[in-house]
Structure formats: C-alpha cells, structure tokens
C-alpha cells in the first residue's frame, strides 16, 4: 500500500536530525510491504484535505521557525481538519510548540500557533537540556518507555485535562514542573524529544504507521507485525540509562 506523507518545511525545520525520523518511517513501512510517498510541504503550497495519511513537523532554529510561522498559521484549519479526520501526525520540538495555541516571547510578544494541541508555550530564562526518559501514558503504549534528548527554552503548559505523551521519569519534560511530557490529540503526537525520537523508540513509529494505514484504508488501526529490534532495544536501554544518570531534574 502507498502511504502519503506530508513533511512540513523540511528545508527549515530539520535541526535535530528530523530526517532520522523520516528514515525510520520509510524502512519500517517498507518492512511491512508499504511504500511511503513523501511530499515536502513548502511555503506557499496547498494542503489538500485528506491528501496525507501521515504528517511530520520537525524543529528549527529560532530564525528559521520565524520564517515559516506565518505560512504555518495559514494552514491551521487544514491541519486540524486532517487530524480530526484521523490522519496521523508527529511534531517534534519546535514543531510541537508551533502546533499549540501560541508562544509567548521573553518580550511579551505573542506568536499565534496552529491550535491543534491544547497548550501554550512561554519562553523561559534558561534552556532545559539533557537526556529524558518517559513512561508513556498512551493506552497503546502498554507501559512502554520513550527515551530521547530535549533542548528547549520554552515551557509548554498543557490545558487541564489534556492528554500528555507520558510521565517524566528523568528529565524536564514540557515545563520542568508538571512531570508531563508531550501531548496527544487523536492520532497526533507532539513532543520535545529528539535524538532522533523514532530509531530508539520504534514502537512509537509503528503506532503512527498503524494510524496512517488505518487512515489510508478506512479500517480500525491494527498493531503491525513485530520486527527484529535488537539494535533498537540496545540503543533504547543506553539512552534510558543516560537519562536516569544525567537527565535534567525539574526545578
């Protein structure tokens, strides 16, 4: 089956090795007999309703993010509608912030976001940098963990009742205080975790792919067949140990 992937602003939002996440989607889809057709979504192009089974938004440096923010804001409705219709979406770091309601700068300025994730981000004094380990609270996670690396000045506050990606075991997470990391809305996941995220957390990739397949077929999501993830498991264990040993501690 062909899975249609929309990669938003790959030329601008690629700072934390986002192409590693794309490579994982490609290879793991191919191992189950599916082809990804990846379409770069660049400034000024359209976003057709229903045209993508999976959307990806990475992170960029401040300057690059400012360059695409206006274009992204124009797509707010289309992105929310896509997720509403069951498309899978992964947003990492800067992309995770931009897909919330908005960002409050140090100078009090307000940058309007997409409004997909129920959160607001406020610029902090210090950067929260380090290895992170989460215990995922997604019902599909079945208690599995997620290991990554965070590097963000923004403090992201979830609305009451919003669903996080997981509980912080080690590291800062969304805001360094709530003990939550990331956010989930429907089949959309947002997180500060890069590393990149997916190579060492392959179950997250498979979960997103299963949602993308369900979107393409109109059927209910089905777990994908297991792959040999021996290397992934070792990498996950090492990254998890790093987070326990030296991840940031909430203030």
């Amino acid at each position, binding site marked *: 089956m062909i899975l249609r992937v929309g990669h938003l602003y790959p030329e601008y939002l690629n700072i934390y*090795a986002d192409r590693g996440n794309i490579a994982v989607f490609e290879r793991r889809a191919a191992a189950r007999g599916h082809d990804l057709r990846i379409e770069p979504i660049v400034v000024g192009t359209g976003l057709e309703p229903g045209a993508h089974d999976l959307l990806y938004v990475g992170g960029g440096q*401040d300057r690059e993010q400012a*360059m695409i923010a206006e274009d992204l804001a124009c797509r707010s409705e289309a992105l929310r509608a896509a997720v509403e219709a069951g498309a899978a979406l992964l947003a990492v770091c800067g992309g995770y912030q931009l897909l919330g309601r908005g960002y409050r700068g140090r100078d009090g300025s307000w940058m309007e976001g997409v409004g997909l994730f129920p959160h607001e981000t406020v610029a902090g004094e210090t950067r929260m940098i380090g*290895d992170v380990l989460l215990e995922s609270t997604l019902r599909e996670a079945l208690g599995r963990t997620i290991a990554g690396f965070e590097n963000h000045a923004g403090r992201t506050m979830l609305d009451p009742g919003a669903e996080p990606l997981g509980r912080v075991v080690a590291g800062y997470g969304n805001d360094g205080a709530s003990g939550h990391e990331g956010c989930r809305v429907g089949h959309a996941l947002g997180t500060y975790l890069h*590393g990149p995220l997916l*190579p060492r957390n392959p179950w997250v990739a498979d979960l997103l792919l299963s949602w993308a397949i369900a979107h393409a077929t109109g059927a209910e999501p089905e777990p994908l067949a297991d792959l040999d993830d021996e290397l992934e498991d070792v*990498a996950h264990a090492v990254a998890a140990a790093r987070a326990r040993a030296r991840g940031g501690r909430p203030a």
Partner: protein
Amino acid sequence: MSARLALETSAARLVGRLSRATRRGGGTTLPGKLVWKLDPDALDALAARLPAGLALVSATNGKTTTTAMASSILSPARRLAWNRSGANLASGVTSTLLAADGAELGLLEVDEFALPEVMRRTQPRVVCLANLFRDQLDRYGELEHIAERWRAATAQLAADATLVVGADDPLVSSLADRREQALRFGLDDPRHARPSLQHAADSKYCIRCGAPYAYEAAYVGHLGAYRCAACGHARPPLDVAARAIETHGLDGVSFSLETHSGAARIRLGLPGLYNVYNALAAASLALALGATLDAIVAGLERFRAAFGRFERFTVGGKRVLLLLVKNPAGANEAVRTLEDGSPPETLVVALNDRIADGRDVSWIWDVDFEPLLERAGRIVVSGERAAELALRFAYGGFPRERLELVPELEAALDRGLELTPPEGELVVLPTYTAMLSLQAIATRRGLTRPYWEAAS
C-alpha cells in the same frame, strides 16, 4: 611582572609538573585552571607581557589545524606561546601563557564561546574567525547566538588590529563589513564545488533579507561563493584566495595561494578542501602579522596534521587511517576525503557522548554517510553510543548482518584490524573523546608519542 603574578606563575608551574609527574595528563590545563580561578585578571597581565602581541583563532571547524599551520609558518622567526594541545578555554589559554617563558608572540586557538572574554582580556593584534557550523547545540545553543556574541566582541576590537574572516561563510564574513583592517579569505575554483548544498548546510538563508542564497559554488557545507537574488548580499571580494586547486586523493591537495603581496603554488601534505580553508586562514593570519610569502609557503608545505585529525600509522603490516569526526560539516568532509581516495572496505566508527563530543548524538543523522555505506563491506560500531551509530547505518540502508557492535574501543580497533586484509587499510572515524582514547591506546602500544612530547 607583578609580585602576585610571579607567585601565581611559580605555583602554577609546580601544579603542571605534578600533573605530568602523576600522569594525570599533559598538565596542560590544570595550572591555568588554578590561576584562572584565583585571579582571572592574570590573563590580562600574561598577555600584556608578550612583546609581539597575540593572534587568536576561532571557528567551529579547523581551529586546531589552522593554529598549528600558523605555528609552522611563524615559529622559525618568533618564539611562540601556542596552545598546541588544544586547551582552548580561558583556563587553557592562561596555562599556555603561564608556561611560555620568553615567548614573543601568542598564537592561540580559542573556543567559540570563550572568545569574547579572551579577546577582551588579551587585546589581540590579529583575530582570525574562520567559520560557524552547527555543533553541539546542547552546549552552545544556536548558531545565531554565537554569531551575536562574536559580533559584539569584534565591535570592540582595536582599530589597528586586523580581523581575518572566512569570506565564504555569510555570518562570519559579515563581522568584517565596513572594517578597514580586515582580510577576507576564500576558495575560488568552481570545478570543486558540490553539485548542491548538503543536507547539513547551516546558513542557507540570506543574513540580510532571509531569502535562500544562490550559490555560484558551495565548497564545504554552506561555505562558498553565495549571492542573494533578492537583496544582492554576496560574498565580498577576496584578499586571500585559493585558485587552481588540485586534489591528490588522501595524499594531499595543492593550490595557488593568491594574495595582495603575490601568489605562490602550495602543496599541502593533508587532503581535502577543508584543509585548503585551514591553510588560507593560517596564511591570512600570518600575512596580518607581517610574514613573508616565502615563510608562508615553507610553513604550509612542511606542516603535518595534529594528532587524530588525519593520522596514519601501521599495526602489524596493516595501515590505519584515523580521521576525527565531530560534527556534521566536519564528518561530511571526512567522508568526502575518503571518497577521493579508495573508499574503505572496513570501517570502525566510534561515537561517544561526553561533553566534548556533544551529549546530544542526533547530529550523526545529519552526516551524509551514505557514500561510505554503499561501498563498505563491514562496519564495526564502537564507543559509548555504538548502538545509535548502528541504527544510523541500518536505517541508512546498511545491512544489519554486516554491522558489528563492539562498544569497547580497543576491542573495536582489534576487530577492525582482524577484518582488514594484509596490506589493507583500516579506516577509523572517532568522535573527539573516542579519538583521545584511541590516541592513548596507540601511545601505549608504541604507535605514536603523546601530544605533549611531540617535537616543536
């Protein structure tokens, strides 16, 4: 020398001797750390006692090699205070100046983040700023942040001091805009341009208006002859240029060095366009200090690489080539250098994640390893984050059954040698601290000498 400085100096020397005597390392930064902690103003006084002043070098990539090349040019005529070991924080610089009795000229590589303070305290005659690449975001924050700090520091530079900048890097080049005492160096040979900007290219957008640059030629990452179609911002005319470049595989590279005081053909004993950049930076710095073209040619031609940047040694009849990889731009050039030679059959790649390597290992995904993966028969992945490397290569299309996970470095080196046919060459690509460990292993086995004993 003030009485206080004299006392600190002798106390610090003692610490340095103790450090070496107890084999806790080269004793390169411990004395400086002590003095730096007790009295940071000592750095000002130590710099002021150098009769011929100081020259500083900073960059993301190539500062150690550039400084070593400049030393090779300048040392016959001047007694140098040079931080050859690469101890490039304020404490390391302090150590070097403490230890340099009777030196005339300071020649110091300086960490990108430490540069503003070291500049303010040492009041250099020449500052050479070569490039800024994405590197260790976990330590320094974003590229623009470093550039802003550099901009503030260079604005305070004395009017009669010379600012040497890499003209091929838009951000760095702009630091010398409207400055009279400046030298701009760059490459000018589009035959060696990359067909397109690489994935890891950093400063792709016009620093004035934000439109993407059009490149007449991109040589290394985002370094090249750029022009903005929207606002016209372009690379400035070059004061020091490399033209008619010829690469000679892994054996070296030659080029015509063209300056306002004449031109000369240079043959470098180390490969790659990035080393041409390093040579141009060193030549420009030397010119700014009044060196002759003859001295520059002689200095560059006799230069050999600093340990690990490009190291060859032989173990039991098998050759080992060691190339440091520490960030996407540097690693891409290492890959390109290997492509220019005969691409290796067996590779050992070692990834550590200590502070000096960068704790965030995501950068390995921004390196275009693919040309090596296409031709390698077997890859031994090593270091503390060996499994992440294994995933990088596996998801890059390299068959898992031809990857070997050997986290321990010495065992990985031995396994790599075992897989290398007699008379063959093993290529080893370590990150910074993995390189230091390999250096210690090589030293222990008698393959090289420690860096603090290397001949001047």
